[in-house]
């Protein structure tokens, strides 16, 4: 508890990371790995067949890709890190230390990846004729780097859900090569190729006019898409099989949220419709039918993106109370620290708490306890608003409930603090939900406005 707390207003911490990460995943998987692979294959076909159509398609598609990859993909990737640095210094700080070497290697690979991609782009015209082969090899080496990058990151991501024996033995290797590592890597690779093929088809269908080439390319990309899509299905099943059932059981809620959790069928129906559209689309693409493919590509692409969002949301959500299972809760309190704070008190051990400007005691303490315990997921007045969560509960009810958050709602961490602190926070939340106090950023230590409308 040596860092000040910051929570992002309205959007909330989770949603902000989520929006940034989804954009990053779609670009890093779909374009940086998937689409560039298609581009290198297209270049190769163009070279083998001496076809200007294939060559031109590859070159023009590369330009679009490289602008998006370096302009949005790379920035949002670093962005995930930026956001976590601001809201979860303990979490990211610990992760960086456990995985220092993969992280460092990842940086080298990432740098090489960008350098090779830039060279690949800038030498397209220069390395023609005799040197074309060299250029294609360069493209292929980029793909190898891209996949190595995915390899390194997946180990770290997998750890956050299935740390295996790490909480006990603290061994790097069991953390990195954790049970969900291989299925997740294969799943991400299939996702990348499926997304890449769909983006390529979208570009093809809306920018090309040459009918023979278009049909031929559509057929090939359709094949890539179908194979990768089958891979996605198989590897998701494998992936969810290695996830402990205690986590897996929150999957439906993670997607449907409180609003739709009582109609769980929605989840199955939407996914069934989506899969049907994708298969239909793959069929038309294989047939080389331009008209129908053009009609279906937008919904197909949208559903691919929905699938990615779904997967990432489930993966991030179901690890529930933990940021690092067996070590740290999502609110950055360590598992053993939580037991200690329960006895010793949170406020006493919070460095920044004592720096808060003058506020009435209950509000000052309550707001801080809320910020430290809850604000990783809950906002005040925004997404996952705590006011609506406790609305209707009397103060004693809130007091009891926050003492059992972890038991009652298994994906919530426990409250870390003494019984008195729990009572203080309950009073704070009660007054908040009854509009007796008004506050948007509890951690920002500014004087809080009291509303007297009793």
């Amino acid at each position, binding site marked *: 508890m*040596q*860092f*000040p707390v*910051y929570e*992002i207003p309205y959007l909330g911490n989770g949603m902000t990371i989520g929006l940034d990460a989804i954009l990053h995943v779609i670009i890093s998987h779909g374009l940086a790995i998937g689409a560039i692979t298609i581009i290198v294959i297209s270049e190769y076909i163009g070279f083998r067949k001496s076809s200007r159509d294939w060559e031109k398609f590859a070159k023009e598609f590369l330009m679009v890709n490289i*602008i998006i990859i370096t*302009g*949005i993909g*790379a*920035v949002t990737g*670093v962005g995930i*890190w*930026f956001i976590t*640095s*601001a809201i979860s*210094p*303990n979490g990211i*700080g*610990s992760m*960086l*230390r456990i995985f*220092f*070497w993969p992280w*460092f290697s990842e*940086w080298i690979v990432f*740098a090489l990846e960008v350098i090779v991609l*830039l060279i690949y*782009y800038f030498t397209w015209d220069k390395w023609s004729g005799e040197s074309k082969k060299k250029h294609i090899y360069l493209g292929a080496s980029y793909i190898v780097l891209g996949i190595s990058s995915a390899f390194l990151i997946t180990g770290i991501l997998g750890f956050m859900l299935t740390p295996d024996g790490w909480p006990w033995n603290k061994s790097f290797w069991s953390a990195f090569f954790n049970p969900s590592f291989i299925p997740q890597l294969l799943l991400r690779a299939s996702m990348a190729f499926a997304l890449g093929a769909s983006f390529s088809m979208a570009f093809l269908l809306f920018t090309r006019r040459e009918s023979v080439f278009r049909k031929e390319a559509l057929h090939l990309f359709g094949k890539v898409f179908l194979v990768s899509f089958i891979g996605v299905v198989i590897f998701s099943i494998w992936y969810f099989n290695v996830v*402990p059932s*205690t986590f897996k*059981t929150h999957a*439906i*809620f993670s997607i449907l949220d*409180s609003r739709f*959790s*009582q109609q*769980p069928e929605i989840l199955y129906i939407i996914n069934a419709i989506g899969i049907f559209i994708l298969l239909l689309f793959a069929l038309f693409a294989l047939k080389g039918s331009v008209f129908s493919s053009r009609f279906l590509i937008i919904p197909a692409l949208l559903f691919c993106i929905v699938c990615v969002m779904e997967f990432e949301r489930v993966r991030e959500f179901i690890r529930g109370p933990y940021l690092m299972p*067996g070590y740290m809760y999502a609110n950055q309190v*360590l*598992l*053993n*620290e*939580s*037991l200690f704070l329960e006895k010793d008190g949170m406020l006493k051990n919070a*460095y920044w708490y004592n*720096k808060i*400007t003058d506020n009435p005691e209950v509000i000052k303490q309550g707001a801080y306890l809320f910020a430290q315990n809850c604000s990783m997921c809950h906002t005040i007045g925004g997404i996952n608003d705590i006011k609506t969560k406790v609305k*209707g*509960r*009397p103060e*004693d*009810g809130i007091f*009891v*409930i926050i*003492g*059992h958050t972890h*038991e009652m709602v*298994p994906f919530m961490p426990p409250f870390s603090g003494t019984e008195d602190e729990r009572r203080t926070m309950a009073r704070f939340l009660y007054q908040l939900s009854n509009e007796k106090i008004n506050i948007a950023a509890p951690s*920002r230590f*500014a004087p809080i406005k009291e509303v007297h409308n009793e």
Partner: protein
Amino acid sequence: MNSLHDILLKKPLPDEWLHGLLFTTFTLHILFVLLTLGTAIIALYYFVDAWWGGKLSESRWDKEILRTFLAHKSLAVVLGVGPLLLIQIGYSVPFFTAINLFAPYWILIIVFLIIAFLSFDALAHKNHVHHYLHLTFGVIALIFLLAAPGIFVAVLLTAENADKWMAIVQNGYRLSGPISYHWLFRYLHVIGASLVFGAGFHYFFSTKDETRKKKAMLKWIVAGILIQFVLGIILYTTLLEKPDFITNVSVFTGLGIAVLLLWIIYLTMDKKDALSIRTGVPLLMLIIIPMLLARQFIQNKKFMPFEKQLQSNSVSYQKTLQPYTIAALNNYQSDLKTTYDNGETIYSKSCTFCHGENVDGNGSEAKHLAILPEDLAAIRTTRPYLLTILTGGVSGSAMPYFTVFDRYKLESLIDYLDKKHHILGLPDPIAVKIPDSASNEAQIIYTETCSKCHGTDGKGTAFSKGFEPPPPDFSVFSLSTRRAFDIITNGYTGTVMYPFSNLAEDVRWGLVKIVNDKRTQ
């Protein structure tokens, strides 16, 4: 002062290596940052220049210059990852704290960079953009691009000055006073450097022996260095602490080499190939390296004692936590084995602490509640009504809503409770014989008193709907006859349902029958 603990204590590299690597990677990063900024500024300048000179249709310098933007900015981003990693490992507390204090701006950098990068890349790759549009895009992109180093400088400056943190907080998370002047000139010094290095890059690498353009770039370099002299002097005077000897040596070495570079440019200006790549590039590098070294010296001097103290505090906090580790891991182990996918587990975890292990409302927390938890074993209701309560909670009571469980899970909870306690059954028949007179009296009392809140049909009234909690709907919710009798006799603690123990026992049984009959009707 602060405490780091456990994993945060680990240093994967010895300090010397960490500092060395940090300096190297940071220098590379800054170099490309300067090229990115410089390229953007100079390109925009030449666009305006061409427009005013009416040369927009001729060969455009701004396009040629901006073409390298894609590579510069990509490498700047990528190379920034290394120092970000190393500084977060090496100086966790000051760096993370500084980020946190400027968190909103820090997060906005992502948005700023995306806007700036996409706009400049689009301008570089699109052949014809209307010039008003071009200018608008360019200016907006440049503003966003220039904002980023401002935020970075503020973060680093804050990290270096732990003694100013409280002032920053009390000022509403803003820099003020001497530190803000220092920030301003440090920021401007970065922008000034970007002119020198941006122009330097294009002078050596993208002018292709075009004499006119080479001359122009040379002017940028000279002007940039002169600006840097002025800004540097001001920056030096705004330093928050007196620089030590080694910092001074670095700064003045850089300064000396800059003077040397100017002198060489002056001497060779009239020659065709003025500044050669073999002298120019090493000299420029020799300016930036000592300057960045000076920065690093100042930073280390501030960070090191802080880190040392931190380490010792952390070790003691870790010792405090140590005794709790085994219990924590055991809890985790048992959590891993618990799956909330069946009624039994859900009841025992999510309901027991209020409703009790015996499902009788005597949970361990019941003593804290003004409105006692319901004796669930005694309820006799319907599945839809129970689902309404489970998904909506009971307003005014501690009973929350449980939509965190999807319907399959709530159904299994209901099934579990029904199997054990027949909660979905109808109330059992009344064993006591109720005389007609008592029945009649009960009916009168129900109509005159009870129905005010419970309604003649047992569904509640408009008046009682606003109660916290409101009365249950007797047409779908009843209790075992024993429990119903108890509540009529003793009231329901914490609610407006008050005791009717003054009524004769027969009459109370009569009331139970009336209430139960609402259910079967």
